[in-house]
């Protein structure tokens, strides 16, 4: 009995507990008000776009744990698909080569973000805001603002990235599998690996981490690259799924993704991060957007609920932090 209580206490004090309860409450309320919410069709719809944002959020989680964030993810999301399809449609390269070039450009974008933040010591807010404008501007310029068509898809590559399949009565895309796979790998890295210890220490106390031999600069640059690469992958997957590469797609995703990450329990200031929490945060915001329309709340009121969730969860996390980890 005492062991059960102590187990429960540990369970409740975990930062993922709040988000888990919120997600459960959402599902219960939406299902009661509108049973169609948990119909296979609606869950399939929910899981079509959710993993694309979720993949960006996973990269952002590790970056934010190291004490930085990336506002350029939405623009990279739109830009990478535009690059790949422009190269392919103009016959410059095959689709896999276009894909590799788009990913390589994402690596460069991430590296430049990281270089500005670490070597020039400019806050990531300003660096990635600048990068957002540069990347979005480039996407608009090379397409003249028009969407790129996605007709002659290379079947095998498209199937690997976003192939459709049926599972337990649901129509799913391969991005769900990628999202789960990335979540497992990055969750493992953050909690079990030496790299994870370095990421947490970099976000918690960069000066003393540096003094202990942690390569703070290298860690941060690697995470900026991870964030850009994940966004590029998500953007390319999305373009194949919706069969268009719009230079404007991904607009304002950065804020939604950051909201998902902090709702899950990762600290905006660094030093604390949870991949499981982010997965919950992603599901909370996406099912909120979906469910609120289903139960007949006017779509224009949607942001009120999102804002309230963010504020409520922040209050909860800060309360838990004060209660269980006094002194910081």
């Amino acid at each position, binding site marked *: 009995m005492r062991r059960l209580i102590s187990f429960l206490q540990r369970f409740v004090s975990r930062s993922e507990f709040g988000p888990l309860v919120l997600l459960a409450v959402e599902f219960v309320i939406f299902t009661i008000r509108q049973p169609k919410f948990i119909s296979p069709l609606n869950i399939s719809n929910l899981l079509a776009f959710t993993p694309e944002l979720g993949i960006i959020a996973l990269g952002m989680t590790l970056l934010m744990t190291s004490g930085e964030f990336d506002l350029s993810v939405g623009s990279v999301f739109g830009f990478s698909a535009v690059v790949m399809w422009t190269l392919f449609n103009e016959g410059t390269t095959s689709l896999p080569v276009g894909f590799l070039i788009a990913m390589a450009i994402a690596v460069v974008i991430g590296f430049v973000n990281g270089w500005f933040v670490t070597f020039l010591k400019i806050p990531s807010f300003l660096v990635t805001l600048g990068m957002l404008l540069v990347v979005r501007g480039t996407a608009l310029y090379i397409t003249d603002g028009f969407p790129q068509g996605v007709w002659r898809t290379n079947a095998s590559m498209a199937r690997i990235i976003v192939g459709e399949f049926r599972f337990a009565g649901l129509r799913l895309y391969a991005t769900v599998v990628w999202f789960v796979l990335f979540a497992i790998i990055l969750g493992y*890295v953050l909690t*079990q*690996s030496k*790299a994870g*210890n*370095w990421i947490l*220490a970099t976000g918690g106390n960069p000066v003393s981490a540096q003094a202990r031999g942690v390569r703070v600069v290298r860690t941060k640059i690697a995470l900026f690259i991870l964030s850009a690469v994940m966004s590029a992958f998500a953007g390319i997957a999305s373009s194949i799924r919706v069969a268009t590469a719009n230079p404007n797609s991904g607009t304002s995703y950065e804020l939604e993704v950051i909201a998902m990450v902090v709702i899950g329990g990762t600290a905006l200031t660094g030093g604390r991060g949870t991949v499981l929490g982010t997965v919950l945060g992603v599901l909370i915001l996406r099912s909120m957007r979906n469910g609120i329309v289903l139960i007949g709340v006017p779509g224009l009121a949607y942001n009120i609920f999102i804002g309230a969730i963010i504020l409520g969860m922040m209050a909860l996390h800060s309360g838990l932090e004060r209660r269980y980890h006094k002194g910081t």
Partner: protein
Amino acid sequence: MMTMTDELVRMEHIKKSFGRVQALNDVIFTVRKNEIVGLLGDNGAGKSTLIKILSGALTADSGEIYLNGNKVNIRNTTDAIQHGIETIYQDSALVAQLSIARNLFLGREPIKSPHFLDRMDQSAMNELARQLIKQVGITKEIPPTTPISSLSGGERQAVAIARAMHFKSDLIILDEPTNNLGVEETRGVLRFVRNARDSGCSCIFIAHNIHHVFQVVDRIVVLRRGEKVADDVDPKRTTIEEVEQIITGMKYNS
């Protein structure tokens, strides 16, 4: 008299100024192996500056540093730690959000095979951490997975000390380690300093509280206005009053 081989650290002709203020003027400072040196001086005497140069937090304008007779170049704190010089400040350089075990092994994490993405050997880390915190005198049962932010000031210092001991630092610099500590915690730190010497380590001990210094050190060095005014004060044959007079400049003993 001592020979060169006895010397662990030798700082020679160290000069440092901040703008027009000469913080250190041609200071020679040595620490022998297995020796606890108390570094005393009034506020602004240059103790912290001297120590920061040795621990890599500042660089001297001129002068040389020798370790075991070899000239070394200490450009930053990482260099100092690699040379076996560990500094323990009041607010010890720990990552508050990380656990005790993760802090102890930060930067030198033991890796478990199979080497899948550099997996840390967390059970070994926790087990070693449990032993180490017992060794440095934390009698309370604290799980090694506790984050540093939940520890008291003294416990945090004990963790920093445990880290210095485990990684076999040659020299541990304790900069005001007893400030803000309770009686029992202070006793723990003083006991640690004696243990460290017994296990082959040298210490530099800086404290405002002369009584604490007198309890543990082998030799007292006094700085005043950036210059060394006493080098070989034996705490066993000198009274606290005499040392106070040297510190304030009422009496010279060089």
